[in-house]
């Protein structure tokens, strides 16, 4: 089931939740438990668009954009979804298209919606690839995942299902899939402390991970100011299309980064003003960047946390 790129372009123009419903209405019924919709957005570049749901909503395991890139020699998976269920569905989607080995499973960062499907690929014996900070970030998160996302693992849930990278990326790494190369780049503290982007040279497609949120409110788990620096660097890259961590694809990366840049700037400026006035965190949460609210989905579940985090960090700047 290949969807022409033109149709993706069309879908992108729709309000996202509506598009999400439409996509999921067209889910194929081939796999035994779950089939996910995959778009071939460029030759050999396959994306499943996650749904814009809260992290505690039913369906929360399917909120991240995940996918794979097909070379002549082997396949690279980029993020595996928020459950074994989604990981297996992605695996099944790959196997419907190719029998080539899966040589790499790349995680763009530590968040649960991007990594919890890793174990669904273990039997393929891939290299698990991530930012050099991902291993430590996984170690910090493992207990949290087990406590709060146990239902998204195979039963009984166990720490061994949460797979950390065996191939760390310090700065850059090139992966050869046969006939195409992926350029991996590790970034300094931004969305998280382990953000990694993947650039496919054949299609000039950049997978941003959660360094780019579209429509869904960005979550600051690293540093808002660090993230702004990275955004400026991303905006200068020459790419044909970007696959964000959440939200629709873009063929204009600099413009796609603008809303996120504006929100993060409002967060930082607002918190700085609050601190200069000696205001409490509660006051900051109630007043900082609230004009941004109409521009984003899932505001209530994330904005207060962003303000709190930026406030705690800027207290010591």
């Amino acid at each position, binding site marked *: 089931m290949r969807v022409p790129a033109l149709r993706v372009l069309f879908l992108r123009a729709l309000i996202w939740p509506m598009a999400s419903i439409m996509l999921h209405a067209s889910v194929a019924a081939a796999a035994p438990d779950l089939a996910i919709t995959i778009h071939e957005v460029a030759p050999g570049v396959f994306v499943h668009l996650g749904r814009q749901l809260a992290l*505690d909503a039913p369906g929360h395991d399917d909120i991240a954009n995940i996918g794979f890139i097909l070379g002549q020699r082997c396949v690279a998976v980029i993020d595996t979804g928020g459950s074994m269920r989604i990981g297996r569905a992605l695996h099944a989607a790959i196997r419907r298209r190719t029998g080539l080995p899966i040589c790499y499973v790349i995680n763009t960062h530590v968040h649960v919606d991007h990594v919890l499907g890793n174990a669904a690929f273990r039997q393929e014996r891939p290299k698990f690839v991530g930012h050099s900070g991902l291993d430590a970030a996984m170690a910090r998160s493992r207990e949290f995942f087990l406590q709060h996302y146990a239902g998204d693992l195979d039963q009984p849930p166990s720490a061994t299902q949460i797979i950390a990278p065996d191939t760390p990326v310090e700065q850059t790494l090139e992966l050869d899939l046969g006939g195409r190369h992926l350029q991996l780049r590790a970034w300094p503290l931004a969305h998280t402390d382990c953000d990694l982007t993947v650039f496919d040279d054949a299609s000039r497609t950049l997978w941003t991970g959660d360094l780019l949120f579209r429509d869904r409110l960005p979550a600051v788990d690293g540093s808002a100011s660090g993230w702004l620096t990275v955004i400026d660097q991303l905006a200068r890259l020459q790419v044909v299309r970007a696959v964000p961590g959440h939200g629709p694809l873009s063929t204009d990366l600099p413009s796609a980064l603008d809303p996120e840049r504006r929100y993060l700037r409002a967060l930082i400026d607002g918190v700085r003003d609050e601190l*200069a006035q*000696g*205001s409490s*965190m*509660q006051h900051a*949460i109630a007043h900082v960047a609230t004009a941004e609210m109409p521009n984003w989905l899932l505001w209530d579940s994330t904005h*207060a946390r962003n303000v709190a985090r930026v406030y705690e960090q800027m*207290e*010591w700047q």
Partner: protein
Amino acid sequence: MHAPTTARHSPRWRAAALSLLAVGFCGSSFAVSDGQTPSSGAWEYLQKQFYPDRSIGVLDDSYMSLTAPANTPDPAATPLTLHFGDAAVGHIKQIRVIIDNNPSPLAATFDVAGGARVAEIGMRVRIDRFTSVRAIAETSDGKFEMRSAWVNASGGCSAPPGPMSAGSLGDIRFRPSPDSRSMLISIRHPNNSGFQIDPRSGEPIPSHYVSHIRFSADGRTLLEADTGISLSENPTLRIASDQPLPAPIVVDIVDSKDAHFNASWRGALAESAASSTGSGAGGSR
């Protein structure tokens, strides 16, 4: 729904149901206490210990209020604000802040100097799991008032230290409001709860926390606080009055290893003169 002074929290049953899902990626609505959050074994025990045979008033928000987020933005640093109305300012003797379901429920005891015009006390606390948070004030004429709020959270006491936990132990920052009626104090201290695990080594991190804070203005002690492991990493204290706080403001801190830190703020004109000193005991500095 973001206004702390107007929002009311949802019915208890709904709060309890949501709390099963709330893990820190939560909403931002704030609740003002209504004196009706659930009681608990911890509170019943502490009530017998601290307030035997006392009648505790719970109704009048204009006298005193406790504001806490219904869903905390950060279980390890949940902001709480105690506000005292006109009738209460200058007549509060002591306030205890109790977090029922925390491993160490008594978060802080504030002793207010006689007649000190404290109108607001703000702090950040760890919330280990969904809980009633309560503030009990003793007035100078021997009455007791309690306000409580329900907070959804989990894991605040065991959350690993933040990446910002490095830095200079005992650093203190002052942030006055433009009208000088409030002062936000930020204290650089890990405030390790004893329930945290070092994610690298897997070993428990021993407790190490700010145990006492004295806040003085112009040579007069306004309040002293006995604090514990429920205060967040890098504790903050925000004191507001109904009149300008006279400089110099001096903060004296003692921690659980008996290290002493102090800092002073000498007023807006002499802001650059703010100084901070520390004297470590037990090699804690």
